[in-house]
């Protein structure tokens, strides 16, 4: 029983990191007032770029993760131009980008023959001597470096959003772009920055899945994690720390599935695989049942800003 628990919880951070990073990236973009549905697609781009870099260089997972971030940011520029400059419907734009990325990564991954090739991955970082504590050591102090980096990133983004001038401007653009514009804050630039910066984290989340966690590239490998991240943002009410908690919850749920199979408990396999999606819907129902006069939703979420348009 203890073994089962330790095995399960030791794997939970690895499954939680993609949710956490993707949700955080989405929070940055949505705080600037852009309804961002692109996570599923950008995670695929990150996953493919990470796996591809790893295969071409023959290793260097750190470089691969940086490549994943850069690639996702580059693709997100397309989304930024569509919604911030051309002001097209943010749902339509987000969906288009997701399906574009699904098609594009499938095409590139197959043509470059990156499918199903084993990657080297990232060695765990043992924080000695804490890593030698039985049980707890394996859960908390023998994870890969990105797990620890994720926590640092959360501190950094929290600081950026709530303690710096840039963060204040991003949030003001998301709450009331008209007022921000009148105060001399460029709505366009801050929204584009928020989208691209957030997308780099989404790309890292995708790269982490292919390079560190699964160590393979398979077409469509993110399997809806991006949509779960979108739901997590609503659940977390656009705040970083609750998003991390939610990500941990989903990490635990996802990590439980292989553990149950490994423990020899006979549960219908495909019904088990439904649990993350059903859990997401359950969480959204829970959000809906709470009496929430204040949703914390950014005031201008989903609204394009046209200075010349009178409202």
């Amino acid at each position: 029983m203890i073994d089962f628990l330790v095995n399960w919880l030791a794997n939970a951070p690895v499954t939680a990191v993609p949710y956490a990073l993707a949700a955080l990236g989405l929070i940055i973009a949505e705080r600037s007032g852009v309804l961002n549905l692109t996570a599923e697609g950008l995670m695929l781009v990150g996953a493919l770029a990470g796996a591809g870099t790893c295969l071409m260089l023959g290793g260097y997972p750190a470089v691969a993760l940086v490549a994943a971030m850069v690639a996702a940011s580059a693709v997100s520029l397309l989304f930024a131009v569509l919604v911030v400059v051309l002001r097209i419907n943010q749902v339509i734009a987000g969906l288009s980008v997701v399906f574009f990325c699904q098609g594009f990564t499938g095409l590139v991954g197959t043509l470059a023959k990156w499918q199903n090739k084993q990657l080297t991955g990232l060695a765990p970082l043992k924080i000695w001597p804490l890593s030698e504590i039985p049980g707890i050591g394996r859960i908390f102090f023998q994870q890969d470096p990105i797990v620890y980096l994720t926590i640092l990133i959360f501190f950094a983004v929290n600081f950026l959003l709530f303690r710096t001038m840039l963060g204040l401007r991003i949030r003001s653009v998301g709450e009331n772009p008209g007022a921000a514009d009148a105060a001399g804050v460029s709505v366009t630039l801050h929204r584009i920055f928020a989208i691209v910066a957030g997308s780099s984290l989404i790309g890292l989340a995708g790269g982490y899945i292919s390079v560190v966690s699964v160590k393979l590239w398979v077409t469509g490998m993110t399997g809806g994690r991006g949509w779960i991240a979108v739901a997590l943002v609503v659940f977390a009410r656009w705040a970083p720390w609750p998003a991390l908690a939610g990500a941990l919850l989903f990490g635990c749920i996802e990590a439980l599935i292989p553990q149950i199979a490994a423990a020899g408990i006979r549960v219908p396999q495909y019904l088990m695989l439904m649990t993350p999606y059903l859990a997401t819907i359950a969480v959204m129902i829970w959000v809906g049942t709470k009496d929430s006069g204040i949703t914390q939703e950014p005031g201008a979420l989903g609204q394009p800003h046209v200075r010349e348009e009178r409202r």
Partner: protein
Amino acid sequence: MHDILRRAEPLTPPVPAASRGFGRLTLDVRQNLPAWKQAVFVGSSLILGLAISVAILAVAGIPPLTLASELAGVLTAENLRGVLIQAAPLILVGLGASLAFRIGFWNLGIEGQMIFGGIFAAAISIYDIGPPATRLLLMGMAAALGGGLWVLLVVFLKLRFRVNEIIATLLLNYVAMYFLFHLLYGAWQDSKTAFPQSTPFRPFERLTDIGYGVNSGLLIAIAGVLAAGWMIHLSRIGFYTRFIAANPRMAKVVGVPVRTATIWIIAISGACSGLAGFVNVASQEGRLTQSFANGYVFSGVLIAFLSRNDPIVVAIVGFLIAVLFITGQTLQVFYQIPFTMVQMIEAIIVMAVASSEFLIRHRIRWIR
């Protein structure tokens, strides 16, 4: 004292704008634009999108000339049958998406609804319900019911718990897919082949050709187009739909049954997708397969978007997307281009056409 007066004295005239470098771009909001100009903008952006797609394919190893000859091959008489078979489910999902979008409901659960349509239809076949003569009718009705029920689940979540339907419908696609796998790798697996497929439908459970290389599935799609056209343009519920889309509060105040009409429209939207699932399993596949609903979510969105939710236009756009699908299958077989390429091209087209809306709504001006 003296100093202050001096500083207040000569107020320098504002620098003329022209001397401030290049000037700036501004956007004017257009009140309206003649229809032909709109058509030019949409048409040229469509061409731009297709050009980008052709360019990407050229990089992927399909020269434009090869592409053109493949496209011409698809449109020959013998291949047209395949296109028409493919058009039927596409038109139906297009109808489903456009009905839901008309009322402002983002139905992105088309694949899930198709899967449950297929499962319900297959259940009628597998459990041998009803006499052979009415079997197909029963399967179709079951499929519509399956798709409708699956979307009503989301409607319930939205109305009761304010769950966002975009996320709920998308996530339920995965749930439906795993439920299909659960059946196909378990109780419903074909015991003869041990492939994850159901046993083939019997001949009277399949949609057959009605001559001239036209499959009866297309008749269902055309009937759907006519019914939806009547419903949207002529019937009372169509009027309600326009009213609700324009102003739900006003509609409610003057006595439109907003809730009932919304639920019905969305249920019919789900039923259309369910029927598409039935048409796919009963004509193309002839059995329940793992992937019969793959790639239809965005196709539905695209068809609804390009046809501006008009049922009659849906039929035309659905046919064109069927050509794209069949071309994609040809490229997959002969050039090893993965079928996801079709989704990519669809996305590029939507982005391009949506961008043209910007030019239709705004005028860009250079102010010096």
